[in-house]
């Protein structure tokens, strides 16, 4: 799905099509048709220049009604970085994003750990497996009220967490200040995932790492099994 200001749409398309050999197409946010997609990806970028709040204007895009229905029926939706912020604003995922704790735009490689492999976005991984993956965001400090956090934990919705190189969940590894070191989480039904790190930037060895492929390969596997 492409919004004015999306800038990771081509990278994501390239990985799905050229690296993983999937049929792939762009959906313009003003359209009114998901064109029978099996999975919709909301890419990273700065939709509407992050005006008002990150993702806040994109949620009023015409195609969002179709996206809501698609998600409601169990369709797979992946939001990466700004895509995650849009999904939060839409209410497809619980919580909200605050500015990073150090008030800086973070552009770095971090380690995340797979916390839950029983989702369509992580089933190719192993629990506690580490991924080295880039982040690039200003508003990635995940926040939700305590009762929501309790619910998220009870339902096992946390899929990826920021960790150190040893896989430990530390305050230092929690680069943006997210509650519970949350880097990625699903909805209760597990068909919608939002994550701040960019798997599309580490999905081919030419770019130094293939750690991000696990996310896309998991989606492909779960669609094949369905």
């Amino acid at each position, binding site marked *: 799905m492409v919004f004015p200001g999306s800038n990771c749409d081509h990278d994501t398309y390239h990985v799905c099509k050229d690296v993983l050999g999937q049929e792939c197409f762009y959906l313009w946010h003003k359209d009114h048709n998901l064109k029978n997609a099996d999975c919709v990806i909301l890419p990273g970028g700065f939709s509407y220049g992050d005006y008002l709040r990150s993702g806040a204007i994109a949620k*009023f895009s015409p195609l969002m009604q179709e996206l809501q229905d698609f998600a409601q029926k169990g369709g797979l939706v992946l939001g990466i970085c700004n895509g995650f912020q849009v999904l939060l604003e839409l209410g497809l995922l619980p919580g*909200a994003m605050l500015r990073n704790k150090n008030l800086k735009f973070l552009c770095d490689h971090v380690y995340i750990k797979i916390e839950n492999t029983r989702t369509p976005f992580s089933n190719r991984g192993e629990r506690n497996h580490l991924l080295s993956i880039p982040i690039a965001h200003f508003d990635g400090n995940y926040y*939700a009220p305590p009762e929501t956090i309790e619910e998220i934990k009870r339902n096992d919705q946390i899929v990826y967490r920021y960790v150190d190189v040893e896989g430990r969940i530390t305050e230092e590894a929690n680069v943006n200040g997210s509650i519970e070191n949350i880097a990625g989480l699903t909805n209760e039904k597990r068909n919608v995932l939002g994550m701040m790190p960019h798997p599309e930037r580490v999905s081919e060895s030419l770019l130094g790492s293939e750690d991000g492929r696990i996310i896309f390969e998991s989606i492909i596997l779960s669609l094949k099994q369905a």
Partner: protein
Amino acid sequence: MKIRVLVSFKDTVLDPQGQTVKNALLTLGYDFVKDVRQGKVFEIEVKDIPEEKTRKVIPELADKVLANPIIEKFTWEIIE
């Protein structure tokens, strides 16, 4: 008619920008400053509609668009 809407973080949400401003003020010697919370101001000019309607619609649009109710709260007033 002109309306001013003030959006700020809920008291339970940490406001690192407000904290940074507070620290800057303390560094400058304004040692009486206890706390700073940063927010956003929207000035909305509306067409000639009944005040009753304004009172119904402004909180609605503030809640739907201007503020994210998970982290923010808002107040509003008619300024002109």
